[in-house]
């Protein structure tokens, strides 16, 4: 019991944010309920982003009714690779990534052969709402398949690594690189077994990582060190993330981005309830950083200044960046 109280106090001193605090002080306070559909529906997010000139993976088509499933072949045309996603999916479920064609069938990235019937069933499941939050009817999104930049080859196992940045009121507060593992089945979700690696906000150099709530420094599948990797075009990522506040209006979001070989940083999706494991990946609590941003906002409001995304990025990098390398 005393041990638990001690743990509690130490966590609090480190500024670790718990679920209850995240929900009460950030999500409920900054995220207006009526804006949720913008982030919960990937199609709306995408259309909004295109409108705002923010880079997203190209959309090939939308399937909204059972009848339109027949039009699937028409939508993909003669493309060999594409991604099928539920518009309101959660946690990366219901996503199928097709890498190639194989004798009239398709082949997923993991090498599994899927027939047209399998795809039609997936589309139908998506439409009935099997993967959507709350089981509502949903739409299926067919889009460009991102090919990850070569930089990740050595520290990633299959799938597409993505970069998540937590953005509070337009200020990036913490970033993490999410690497799929054999256990996560190519998915970049931490609760499915992917690795989270902290990223220094100022430089874009990776820090130590987290895997299944533990701290790690090597990728379990490739055994390469995950820290000390310089992410290319880091400022581009930061600007992209900071601009998402204007895009959706939600005050506390997780922005998920990928680095495409050809097209550079792209926004995959926004998350109104970002997880808390990013704190373990960065070995740092969110609480103090969020407080700093809130203090800054208060100050700015008094002076009646509105900062641009570039200025916000600069502020965040000067305050939260340049994490001293841990000495071990």
């Amino acid at each position, binding site marked *: 019991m005393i041990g638990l109280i001690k*743990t509690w106090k*130490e*966590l*609090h001193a*480190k500024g670790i944010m*718990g679920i209850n605090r995240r929900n*009460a002080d950030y999500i409920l306070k900054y995220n207006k309920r009526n804006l949720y559909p913008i982030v919960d529906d990937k199609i709306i997010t995408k259309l909004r982003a295109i409108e705002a000139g923010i880079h997203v993976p190209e959309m090939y088509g939308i399937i909204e009714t059972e009848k339109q499933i027949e039009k699937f072949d028409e939508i993909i045309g003669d493309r060999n690779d594409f991604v099928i996603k539920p518009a309101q999916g959660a946690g990366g479920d219901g996503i199928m990534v097709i890498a190639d064609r194989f004798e009239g069938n398709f082949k997923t990235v993991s090498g599994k052969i899927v027939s047209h019937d399998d795809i039609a069933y997936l589309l139908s499941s998506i439409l*009935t709402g*099997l993967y959507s939050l709350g089981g509502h009817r949903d739409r299926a999104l067919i889009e460009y398949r991102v090919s990850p930049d070569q930089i990740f080859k050595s520290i990633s196992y299959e799938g597409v690594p993505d970069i998540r940045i937590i953005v509070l009121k337009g200020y990036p507060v913490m970033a993490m690189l999410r690497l799929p593992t054999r256990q996560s089945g190519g998915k970049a979700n931490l609760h499915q077994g992917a690795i989270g690696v902290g990223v220094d906000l100022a430089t874009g150099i990776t820090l130590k990582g987290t895997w299944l709530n533990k701290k790690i420094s090597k990728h379990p599948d490739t055994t390469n060190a995950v820290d000390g990797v310089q992410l290319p075009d880091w400022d581009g990522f930061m600007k992209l993330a900071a601009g998402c506040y204007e895009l959706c209006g939600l005050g506390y979001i997780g922005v998920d981005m990928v680095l495409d070989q050809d097209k550079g940083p792209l926004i995959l999706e926004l998350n109104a309830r970002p997880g808390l494991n990013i704190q*373990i990946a960065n070995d740092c609590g969110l609480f103090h950083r969020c407080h700093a941003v809130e203090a800054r906002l208060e100050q700015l409001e008094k002076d009646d200044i509105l900062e641009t995304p570039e200025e916000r990025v600069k502020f965040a990098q000067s305050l939260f960046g340049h994490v001293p390398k841990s000495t071990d």
Partner: protein
Amino acid sequence: MWNIDAKIEFQASSGDPVKIKMYIPPLNKDYVSLNESFISNNYGVSINRDGSNRRATWSARRASGNQTLYYRLVLTKRFSDDKAPTKGPIFRDSIAVEGPEKIAADALLAPIRQHSADVETFITETIKRVNSNDDNAKTLLAGDSSTSKKASIIELLLSIAHVPMERVHTVRLSNDAGSQSPELWLRSYNGTEWLYFNPDNGQIGLPNDRLIWWTGDGELFKAEGAKKTKVSFNMNNSEMNAIRLAKMTDDNTNAGFLEYSLYSLPLATQQAFQIILLIPIGVLVILVLRNLIGVQTLGTFTPVLISLAFRETQLGFGIVLFTIITTLGLSLRSYLEHLKLQMLPRLSVVLTFVVVLIAAISLFSHKLGLERGLSVALFPMVILTMTIERMSITWEERGGSHAMKVAVGTLFAASLAYLLMSVPELAYFIFTFPAVLMILVAFMLAMGRYRGYRLTELFRFKAFLKD
């Protein structure tokens, strides 16, 4: 202390005067009446003695449509050793019979006379013979083996032997939810006391939990100007409650508001509310487990619904059943996955399967002599179906170990909620003082702004404290 509600429902023929006569307990033996009331709008009520019985008469000049009358009796057992002197007839004339029935009756009586020594054994033997597969008994019963037919045959046989017999209609005092109808017993006076017999099995002596409602051959009620009449009895046993105590100790205060307690509701409704008012307690348990401890459960209120189902099955058996049905349902669900069905048809198949499974379990447990299995019939099927669906989605999305964790969390939360909801003191307290729920609301509101860590988070973030 027993509360008994007799509910009389009928349809009044429009425009005609209505008159309902019903027997009510005579109350001169083992029970003391504490309160007796007639709940009826626009009806005149009168009570008159009729031999050893009492009879209430409701009457109205004009009534139409569906009518409901209540008779409520609050009584308690009389604790006293001295028995009131009783008297009764010891001789009666024979009922005349002719033809084959006479022959059958005589044939039956001969062995009964041989096997009996006094009035008591004679009656027991008669009941035994009438209930046996004897051909003569069958002739007399003429294919009708209802209790009332048996009673009239027994009366016929006894009358030939000049043994007097009287019908006694009793109501069982038990806390079972649901209504019952009066049970027929027979009694005979042996010169010093009344002997009671069960016409179905010859059992001697009235069990302690029976209340004599009326005696004699009359029907429970007679109705004029009414059709589709129905009488149902509901009862519960309660300790002396604080509200009654307050009324009894302080007669002078004009505490009219005390009438507005839940105890003034009809008993069937009271029984429902005793369960309903406990639901917030269950919800509170889930709230604490989820937000304070960090236990993961399937859905938010599914555990509360499961704990309500446990009320029917008891805890251990409920958990076993829940596990079996969910496991089998999950395996069916994984088979259905291959058929690639849409969500609604798939859910329908799973639901039907769950119904069949429950029926099968009930049947098997009945055959095996486990009456507990029958209670499963009320295990909410839709909850089970949704649990199976959610479990299987969780399984697919997050893997088996996470699904098991969630399932165990759900069962744990449901069990804890059930245990708390079945504390009788708590049930009594909340039912008597429903405003206590506001205290729960206060706690829930406070929880809504709780920002501290959850217990499981202390372990989740342990990695921070390693170095």
